[in-house]
């Protein structure tokens, strides 16, 4: 890429592709490679004007050429239309799960996939075979319109974390889940949730004749391996001895109102000195012996 990637502190990188004409093919291959570099969920966000299915198919082609098995959950276009443009070697590696012809079992011929859309998704979660695998969801928008958002997110998580050890929260490198998402169809809630789940997010847009892709990578944060003790390496002593700790624990704070304090204030015990005010009037004071608060009935 011509412009170096800008790194934002939290481990994210933003890259925009260059527009040089001669290097376009190399750039496109590099871009596809970089999108597939991290494992896990890759979100492709498109719009009515800039459709994303061609990019999805390009990524599928790249995965298939690398020898990966590709499973496609097709909801929006027919199998013939989807396989158009792929040569026979790629088509043989592509397994198409057809949710286009009869997703809701209206024809009742028994041809529909069992369990409906959710059943098919869940079946994909179980291990599809050894080796790297790419799962393409065409489209995530269709799934979001027909299934609750929480179910979709949980299934996506299960899809991209299959075969990993329990307790290991990082997805396995060789499972790619490509999800096509139509930006205008969903509110900020589902979009934000899916963004948080995704490792890589590609947003398609463009000006008059030039399409562009904005790629966002989310790298996992490094967890600290040990807690840092703040009291070490200081020039003064912050540690407490045992006697000091006991004194500290037994101290009652002045503004903490406990029942003992309440008793002490309300009942003046013997031996406690009452307070007395010593007043020296000067020449300008008007000492009125009459108590102005005399009429108060306390």
């Amino acid at each position, binding site marked *: 890429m011509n412009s170096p990637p800008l790194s934002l502190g939290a481990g994210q990188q933003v890259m925009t592709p260059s527009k040089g004409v001669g290097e376009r093919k190399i750039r496109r291959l590099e871009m596809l490679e970089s999108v597939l570099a991290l494992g896990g969920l890759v979100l492709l966000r498109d719009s*009515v*004007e*800039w*459709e994303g*299915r*061609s*990019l999805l*198919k*390009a990524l599928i082609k790249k995965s298939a050429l690398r020898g990966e098995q590709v499973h496609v959950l097709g909801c*929006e*276009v*027919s199998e*013939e*239309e*989807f396989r*158009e*443009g792929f040569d026979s070697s790629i088509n043989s590696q592509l397994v198409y799960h057809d949710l*286009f*012809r*009869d*997703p*809701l079992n*209206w024809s009742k011929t028994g041809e529909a996939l069992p369990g409906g859309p959710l059943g098919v998704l869940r079946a994909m979660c179980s291990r599809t075979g050894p080796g790297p695998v790419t799962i393409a969801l065409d489209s995530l*928008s269709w799934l979001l*319109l*027909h299934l609750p958002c929480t179910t979709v997110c949980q299934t996506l998580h299960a899809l991209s974390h299959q075969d990993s050890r329990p307790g290991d929260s990082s997805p396995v490198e060789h499972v790619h889940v490509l999800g096509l998402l*139509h930006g*205008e*169809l969903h*509110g900020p809630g589902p979009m934000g949730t899916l963004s948080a789940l995704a490792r890589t997010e590609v947003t398609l847009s463009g000006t008059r*004749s030039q*399409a562009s892709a904005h790629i966002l990578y989310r790298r996992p944060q490094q967890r600290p391996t040990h807690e840092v003790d703040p009291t070490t390496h200081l020039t003064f002593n912050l540690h407490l001895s045992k006697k000091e700790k006991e004194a500290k624990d037994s101290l009652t704070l002045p503004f903490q109102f406990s029942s003992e304090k309440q008793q002490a204030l309300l009942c003046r015990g013997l031996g406690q000195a009452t307070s007395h005010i010593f007043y020296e009037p000067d020449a300008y004071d008007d000492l009125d012996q009459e108590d102005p608060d005399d009429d108060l009935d306390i």
Partner: protein
Amino acid sequence: MFPELNNLLNTSPDSVEQGTLTLLCDAGTDGSFLVHHFLSFYLKANCKVCFVALVQSFSHYNVVGQKLGVSLTSARERGQLVFLEGLKSSVDVVLRAEAEPHPLGFLREAGAGNLQPLYEFVREALEPVDCREAAWRSPVLLVDDLSVLLGLGVGAVAVLDFIHYCRATVCCSLQGSIVALVHDSGDAEDEESDVLLNGLSHQSHLILRAEGLATGFCRDVHGQLRILWRRPSPPTAARRDRSLTFQYKIQDKSVSFFARGMSPAVL
């Protein structure tokens, strides 16, 4: 049909594109002239047409059709046109015995409607029955309009599912076409309408959007038409989607189109 619109869309009754979904959309103006155009266009192209007309009566479309050179009555008689008159048959739904399935049966349902009976009606109307049907060219489904279904209580997802199944049957299996009109209310709070419009846009091959002028009503320019060609699934990424904008004026028997700002009244 309007010859000028045919020129803009680069189609003619002799060469009809098959397997496409055309979305008609209007915002701030009445886009029904596009419906009349496509109805007369496909009848003249010798296609079998199933028209789900939910907005106007049969005689209304017939009168306009006659101005454009087609007779809906004779088309219906010879079996070329299957006409579902929504206004009349909705009354039948209420008065009929419940057991019989009716295309507009969702009107009786208390919960969110399911448009499967309507889909079955369309499928039966357009599927070729026997070799007799080979006389017609490709089948066409025309819907005027889908926003009425939203107003009748059907959810946007149910309407999208209906069009999905129609696409699978009419466009993919039967190699026919679908033309549907949707209103864009422009109301930011109408989420169902937005979901329907955007969901259909993503599935469409051609989007015709009739908009009112931003400056308001004008006697000589009735509105603006935006045409967007797209391919939901291009075989290669090379082909760029095309978009054009024209302004139009509706006359008694035709519609004239011109480039923006080039209305004959202005020049």
